[in-house]
């Protein structure tokens, strides 16, 4: 069991080899089996983690106050908590990830871990190493609250969201991101609707096929026989239509569905980062104003604060710029999109061999 881990370390596994192989049900909760290849090539680290462990990791990543400009990092999004008998609200929130027997969910967790491991700043946190390699479950105490927790709760901070930026680049970025967040969320939702309806159609085809089978009548009557034969044939056709529909839906989920889901969550993460930066900007402007207006007694202190804030802000902007450029959302998710769309095409082509 480890306490707050703030030391810097180097990851001893290949980031791209991290795999979430399975989700096991234990009562109401899910346990995930994770395997990562050692850098040294001498084997693997298999570990099992619960969702709380993931949260632990995330908290540690959030609370790296010592790292300059940490607020400028776009944190890889962690999917919402999954439960075995989830309520409909939770299922709705999970969207695609709730489908397909947790396969997409495992994929999402896997992507999270890989992104963390690949991140130049985040991978250096010891918590990551511990998470991926330690056979003991990492500490599960609640880490102290930090700005990240407060983010979605602060109502008065919403005002700051529309605060005009000093930097044109970031202003554009913010505007752009706002649109993208909405669009990608909508697209993901609509696609979920499509996939769910595909499944419904498949089920209905199955019912029709079964009902046709009931129409088969025994008997010598040639009319009856003709009718029965027709019914059987048609029943078979619809059975295969059903199977095809189901596999189309499955593919949709595991490719475009997951891709869109990731895209929309990523946009949210970027939005939060930009918001943190904006908050800092507001803070900085306040500090400057205070420093100007301060009475000589307080002036020195205010200047200190101002300087500190300026530095912080500078760091944030530097990190943010890098983040935005390197992990431009599309490029991150396009490697998912591409196989997504391509697979979709092939799958539908394969469907036609009725």
């Amino acid at each position: 069991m480890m306490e707050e881990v703030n030391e810097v370390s180097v990851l001893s596994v290949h980031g791209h080899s991290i795999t979430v192989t399975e989700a096991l049900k234990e009562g109401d909760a899910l346990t995930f089996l994770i395997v990562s290849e050692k850098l040294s090539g001498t084997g693997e680290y298999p570990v099992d983690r619960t969702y709380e462990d993931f949260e632990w990791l995330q908290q540690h990543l959030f609370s790296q106050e010592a790292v300059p400009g940490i607020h400028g990092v776009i944190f890889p999004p962690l999917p919402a908590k999954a439960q075995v008998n989830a309520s409909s609200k939770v299922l709705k929130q999970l969207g695609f990830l709730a489908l397909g027997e947790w396969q997409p969910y495992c994929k999402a967790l896997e992507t999270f871990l890989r992104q963390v491991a690949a991140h130049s700043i985040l991978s250096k946190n010891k918590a990551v190493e511990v998470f991926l390699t330690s056979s003991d479950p990492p500490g599960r105490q609640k880490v102290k609250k930090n700005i990240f927790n407060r983010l979605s709760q602060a109502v008065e901070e919403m005002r700051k969201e529309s605060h005009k930026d000093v930097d044109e680049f970031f202003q554009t970025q913010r505007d752009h991101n706002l649109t993208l967040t909405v669009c990608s969320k909508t697209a993901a939702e609509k696609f979920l609707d499509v996939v769910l309806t595909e499944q419904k159609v498949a089920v209905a085809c199955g019912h029709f096929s079964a009902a046709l089978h009931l129409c088969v009548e025994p008997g010598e009557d040639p009319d009856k026989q003709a009718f029965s034969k027709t019914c059987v044939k048609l029943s078979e056709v619809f059975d295969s239509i059903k199977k095809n529909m189901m596999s189309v839906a499955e593919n949709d989920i595991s490719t475009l569905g997951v891709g869109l889901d990731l895209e929309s969550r990523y946009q949210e993460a970027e939005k939060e980062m930009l918001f943190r930066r904006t908050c800092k900007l507001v803070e900085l402007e306040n500090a400057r104003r205070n420093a100007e207006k301060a009475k000589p007694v307080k002036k020195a202190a205010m200047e200190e604060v101002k300087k500190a804030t300026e530095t912080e802000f500078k760091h944030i902007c530097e990190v943010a710029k890098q983040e935005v450029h390197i992990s431009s959302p599309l490029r991150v998710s396009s490697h998912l999109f591409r196989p997504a769309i391509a697979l979709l095409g092939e799958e539908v082509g394969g469907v036609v061999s009725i």
Partner: protein
Amino acid sequence: MADTASDPPPERTDFHEVEDGKDLFPEPADAQESQPASLPAEDISTNSNGPKQDSLFDEDPEDLFAEATEEVSLDSPERDVLLSDGPSPAITPITPPTSVITPRIGHAHDDMFTHSSFDEIEEEEGGDSFDIHINVSDPEKVGDGMNAYMAYKVTTKTSLSLFKMKDFSVKRRFSDFLGLHSKLASKYLHIGYIVPPAPEKSLVGMTKVKVGKEDQSSNEFVEKRRSALERYLMRTVKHPILLKDPDVLQFLESSELPRAVSTQALSSAGLLRMVNKAADAVNKMTIKMNESDAWFEEKQQHFENLDVQLRKLHMSVESLVCHRKELSVNTAQFAKSTAMLGNSEDHTALSRALSQLAEVEEKMDQLHQDQANADFHLFSELLGDYVRLITAVKGVFDHRMKTWQKWQDSQMLLQKKREAEAKLQFTNKPDKLQQAKDEIKELEGKVQQGERDFEQISKTIRKEVSRFEKERVKDFKTTIIKYLESLVQTQQQMIKYWEAFLPEAKAIS
């Protein structure tokens, strides 16, 4: 009605005419109006085998062969049964008011009943193949507000000599169709013919149309109705007897048709229908028929089963249609949102291309869903039609039961009268005795008539059922083939679209 007891094969046209001694053609007076006033839809009065029958019989002055009688025109095993089951020799053509002369071409080869006279008649008809095609098209809204209605153009293309022209059309409204059906039903159902049911009324649908909403659902409704009306007419004329019915001919040909007001739901006729229906339901429960003919029992069971199966099928098809519609709606929405996503992503030209393409593809998908949906409508409508047809079939069976009941009733009455007469013999009341004897004579006639009616309706039903079964198989096969063909086409289109898209997708890295 002359009782041509010596007439084993029941179709001797000229023979019968002569015997009858009736002058066929100038009987327009009481025959013209196709409403046999004495035959309300559901109730068969016991006097119906009297003079009223004649009027029916002479109904069709323009048809040269009006007196020709019903003829077994189907090459089904039932005919053998008919030949051998030795009904009473009094199989006279009491019932069919108009008739079919010849076997349709295609059945002629194994027609054991064809006599030389029939060959002649056949040739006189011009060696018709079944060549009539009816189109219902151009729905037009006439009038405004709640009095508005849709007028449909009914076009008939035929080479049958039955019709005056080869190609003609008239305008009809929905209540005209209902009127036609009610006339046919009142004439034929009680003697065992399966009259195809007309499409159902729909208050909701029509109100929308009347109110003038020019939207998707009311267009769909009109289209559905148009197609249903077309199918209804085609089914009706496919029936050899119904085709020759003057009402049908009038419906197809004459430009003006008297408005059929009794089809309105709330009219007195409508209420009468409802009352009759209820009475029938009660009667059905109380009639216990001694079914001497296993064929009928089996067939009835068969139709019960079929009814259940078809209803189930119908339900699953409806739900499938509904889901497909939903799918196409959702696909459309997804296409829109993808388009928006594509438009907002300007990081890379490639990513924009991706989104746009995805959107195009989804639009195609939607078109295809619509197409599949329309095809399903084919199925759904077909099944709905058959569910209603089977109701008509069951109704015909019920009529047979009623006929039997009538026969039994008159037989019992006869028995009673005979007993009463026997008693009267011992008293000394000559006039009462005479009266009793007269009544008995009358009743004996009735009993015989009842028996004949029963035999006739049984025979008719057998024929009708086998014709129905054939049609059913044919109908289903055709629809299924149509559906499968269009399905294959749709899928091939889809492959093409996705294949076109694939290289674009691959180029996105």
